[in-house]
Structure formats: structure tokens, C-alpha cells
């Protein structure tokens, strides 16, 4: 029997592309591509527990986080958004991306409420990264990573 415990990179990319096109569609396509994130990048995280267990992280520079927030809230592009707005928008973004990735995997499983923070995130040592998708939007990087418990990921 084959156990699938990690989503395919292309499937994750498709989810991200659909979410971006639906909620952030401004005519600028997202493009595949990995780039370094600045130290002050914003991270949003959500965990999946149940039949499939994972930590899903989305990271991006502050400028892009601000653009995403103003777009989702329907604010003028040059509006400065509050930290509260930014936290809420990035939390909803990871909730939607995470929920759709969860739907690709065996269930039933449950999503946590999202967590959003600025600065590098260190995952616990019992998690192993199994999927990384880098995209570029408005010439800024976005990194989506999925980590699973070591045993489920097959790593030592």
C-alpha cells in the first residue's frame, strides 16, 4: 500500500495560483521562482491535525504583505495598513491556502486558527520540511513551505 503524506509541488502551486487569481487578481500573474526573503519577512502559519498532520507556512516581505492586505481589504493601493489589518489579511490568506492544501490530502483533519508574525520562524525539531514552493508576485518573493512530523515524512 502506498501512503501519500505530502502534497505534490505542482498541486501546491496550483492552489496558490488559484487563491492569488481569485482574491488578489490585479492582472499581474504570479510566477514560479525562489528568492531569498529579507530578515524582517512576515510569516503566517496554520497547522493541520488529524489523518494528515502538517504545518503550512507562507512568508513574504513586508511591502508585499502590505500590498496583499490593501488589495484584500479593498483599500487604495497607497494606503498604509495597520499591523492589525496585516495580521488579519495574512491569517486569512494562510487559512485559505492551508484549507485547500488540506483538501488534497487524506482526511478527516482539522485546521487550526492561523498565527501571523514578523521575523524568521523556527519549527520544532520533530518536523521536517517536505514541500517548498517559491513564487514571485509584483517582483517580490513569496515562499510556501509544508512541514510534517518526521515519522509521517519518512525522515529520520
Amino acid at each position, binding site marked *: 500500500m502506498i501512503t501519500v503524506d505530502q502534497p505534490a509541488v505542482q498541486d501546491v502551486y496550483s492552489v496558490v495560483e*488559484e*487563491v492569488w487569481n*481569485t*482574491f488578489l487578481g490585479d492582472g499581474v500573474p504570479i510566477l514560479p521562482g525562489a528568492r531569498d526573503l529579507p530578515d524582517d519577512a512576515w510569516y503566517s502559519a496554520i497547522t493541520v491535525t488529524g489523518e494528515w498532520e502538517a504545518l503550512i507556512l507562507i512568508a513574504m516581505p513586508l511591502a508585499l504583505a502590505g500590498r496583499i*492586505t490593501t488589495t*484584500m*481589504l*479593498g483599500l487604495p493601493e497607497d494606503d498604509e495598513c495597520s499591523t492589525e*489589518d496585516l495580521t*488579519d*489579511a495574512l*491569517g*486569512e490568506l494562510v*487559512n*485559505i491556502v*492551508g*484549507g*485547500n492544501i*488540506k*483538501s488534497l490530502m487524506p*482526511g*478527516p*483533519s482539522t*485546521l487550526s*486558527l492561523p498565527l501571523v508574525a514578523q521575523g524568521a520562524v523556527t519549527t520544532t525539531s520533530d518536523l521536517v520540511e517536505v514541500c517548498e514552493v517559491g513564487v514571485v508576485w509584483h517582483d517580490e518573493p513569496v515562499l510556501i513551505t509544508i512541514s510534517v512530523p518526521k515519522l509521517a515524512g519518512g525522515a529520520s
Partner: protein
Amino acid sequence: MHALIIDDSRTMRSILKRIVHELGFETTEAANGQEALDVLEAGLQADLCLIDWNMPLMDGYTFVTRVRADQRWRNLTLMMVTTESEHSQIVRALAAGAHEYVIKPFTAEAIVEKLELLGLHAKEVPA
């Protein structure tokens, strides 16, 4: 017509509010199921509730069961708008009394289509 938008994310409430405003709905917002129940208890005459699933204090599923258990709100249309896309969750929500189920991410057209099916469409969405 009046829509009660129930989601812990202000961002998502804002997105839904823009869509249903275009359709001619007035809106009230609630950040969780309990807050929504409080608003209904206070006398809000809503025609439609758009309900997230995962929320603190009271989730969307519990809200649906509580509303359906109360005859005062028997005419209230309940639409789940959620990332919970597992078949079992959809079946559970519909069995509890939700009328429709929309999975995030959604387009404005998808919401309009569902509202049309429910007979709650007021105006067309501008292109």
C-alpha cells in the same frame, strides 16, 4: 434584504461585504457564532447569514445548529463560506441545516450563483 456576515477575519468580512453590497444587501458583521447569535437575539431581521466554519468562541457549525433549533429564525437562509472542503464536513453542515456551501477561494460570481439558487438575488454584479 439584510445579510449577517459571520467570520473571525475582518478581511474576509470586507470581501463578502463588498460582494453582497453590490447585490443590494445591507450588512451586519459578527466575528464569531456567539456574536452573531447575540445580534439575532437583539432583534436583527436578517434574510441571509454567510458563515465561516473555523472561528473562536463559537464555530460556524455550532451556530447553524443553534439557529436551526430556534423557530424564531426558521426563515433565515444559512450559507457556509469556508475553507473546509472535505465531503464529510459539507454533508455535516447541510444536514445541520445550512442551505448552501461555498468553498474559499470564491469569486463574486460563485456567491451570486448560490444566492440565485436560494432566490435571494437582488441585482446583477457589475462586470
